[in-house]
């Protein structure tokens, strides 16, 4: 089975779960005055779930013949591309998201930018380090000082 049909299967599951939630779990908790409304919070989701189930079934059963196109990246040969780099960058983004608050903006962002280019194969430290530090400082100054959006600059223990 091709990837697009696997995805359709997953989406069918999503639509079924969503439909279950819309059809069977939402209406009972509705206050009486709302039940007199012509439209309920669950009305729109109910329609959507049915639409979703119909369309995913069409894709899943292959009713619609689509021509096979030359894709930009062939997912069947994913290993031939730089998959390791992509996965490491994704992991880095997750770590960044988790560290942003506790470690502070300045340290985590500099580390993110340096490690990001390191993962991509950059080894010129004399360029990487200044670029990362200057960019981090500039963005922080712009967002925090000029625009006045609070971002904790340093780890919490330093009172940042």
């Amino acid at each position, binding site marked *: 089975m091709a990837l697009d049909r696997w995805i359709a299967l997953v*989406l069918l599951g999503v639509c079924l779960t969503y439909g279950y939630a819309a059809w069977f779990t939402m209406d009972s908790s509705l206050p009486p005055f709302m039940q007199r409304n012509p439209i309920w919070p*669950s009305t729109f989701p109910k329609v959507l779930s049915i*639409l979703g189930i119909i369309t995913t079934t069409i894709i899943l059963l292959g009713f619609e013949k689509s021509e096979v196109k030359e894709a930009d990246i062939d997912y069947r040969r994913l290993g031939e591309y*730089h998959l390791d780099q992509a996965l490491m960058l994704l992991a880095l983004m997750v770590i960044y998201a988790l560290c*942003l608050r506790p470690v502070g903006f300045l340290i985590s962002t500099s580390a993110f930018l340096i490690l990001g280019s390191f993962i991509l194969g950059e080894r010129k430290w004399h360029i990487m380090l200044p670029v990362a530090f200057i960019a981090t400082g500039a*963005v922080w100054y712009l967002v925090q000082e000029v625009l006045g959006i609070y971002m904790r600059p340093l780890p919490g223990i330093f009172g940042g």
Partner: protein
Amino acid sequence: MLEGLLIGLQTAFSIQNLLMVIAGCLIGTFIGMLPGLGPMSIIAIMIPVAISMGDPSAALILLAGVYYGAIFGGSTSSILLNAPGVAGTVASSFDGYPMARQGKAGKALTIAAIASFAGGTLGAVLLMVFAPALSSVALLFHSAEYFALMVVGLSAIAAFAGSGQVAKAVIMTVLGLIMATVGEGALFNLPRFTMGIMDLQSGFGFITLAMAMFALPEALFLVLKPKDLKGDDGEIKDLRITKAEAKAIAPVVGRQSVQGFFIGVLPGAGATIASFLGYAVERNIAPKEEQEEFGKGSIKGLAAPETANNAACTGSFVPLLTLGIPGSGTTAILLGALIALNVTPGPRLMLDEPQIFWAVIMSMFIGNLVLLILNLPLIPYIAKVLSVPRNYLIPFILFFTLMGAYIGQNNATELLILVGFGVCATALKFADYPLAPLLIGFILGGMMEDNFARSMQLYDGIAFIWERPMTLGLLVIAALLVLLPSYRARRARARAAGIADGD
């Protein structure tokens, strides 16, 4: 009117005010390039500066410069990096980014600048002529018509349904609509589908989703399959648009200025719908061979949303200036600024303080003109962003996507959602699912449901569809927009098979 124009010109053409507009344009352009900071937030940030100047005309001129600069800056990031920071520029990335990938970044930015200029200027002309008359039309639109208008906007998905792709485009739209129902609806005040997670209470953030659908998969693709962002020969070429191209986009710009302006006049509809609709309409009326180009770097496909977007922004001033009703978030903030400057917009504004009314209109012209003059020479340098070495560019793209999602909500969970959806979107991209319909569905879904629910309550059922002729008309147009391409394709196929047209 001539007298008014002269008053406006007199106010706007002082050295101080010209410096204001230049400063505003520059600030707007540069901050607008950061995804996550749209015109609304930049204007909000600039308000203290504007108010402290004390002179309402100068303040408005500064804010108009910031406004137009921010819109142009937003288009820049969606064209160069496929990272639309504002809903109104999503449609610009459909064709702008493919152009940048083909090494025509400079040309794409030039087209965007010129189309924005034309849209804004023509919009201002229309505003000058029609503002008083239009204010009553804007009030004719009820929630039923808004609902129908959203449906027309959704018909833009037809543009993504290539051969054998209809079901995929539809399911992506439905998925977008489903995601829009997560969180607390304005009409019900009940959390829905949050699975008890507090962070989902307010729904998914628009920027988070836009970054996850567009910017992140693109960046991952660039990592997976290294490819130079510059043109084949590494040069950023084709800065100028040729005469033939100018001729091709001129009618598009003309049509979309008018259409965008009138959509912008309706409170609440605004630049987003105008840009999607502009894209859909232009694609539908383009000749067959040009239709194939849409989504792959068509200059028409870029000019249409850019023009409509700016014209709509200008149009949204109609209800603000004539009725005192802000039709969009940005004009609501401007209303606040006006009131702080002791100017009350409304029907009396034109009579009581004509110099302010005309100064606003003149500042739109000047803002647009200065923006064009400032940006055309800057474009080669802005486009140089793409010649930053890949090892540095990609971490920065990722960082700006994360920052955009973070600044908006100040919530680190948003970043995890961003990465999660980004991975899903990449998988969808592998399987050739179009991602734009999902975002269109998500943006329009919330508004659509609210308006639908409101009209259901007003009419106590779905009778409004046939009782209100305008609603019915708009829905028919939506159906035509969806059905026409497939009808054309079928007829083309029949003709190819040798069956003559029955005429």
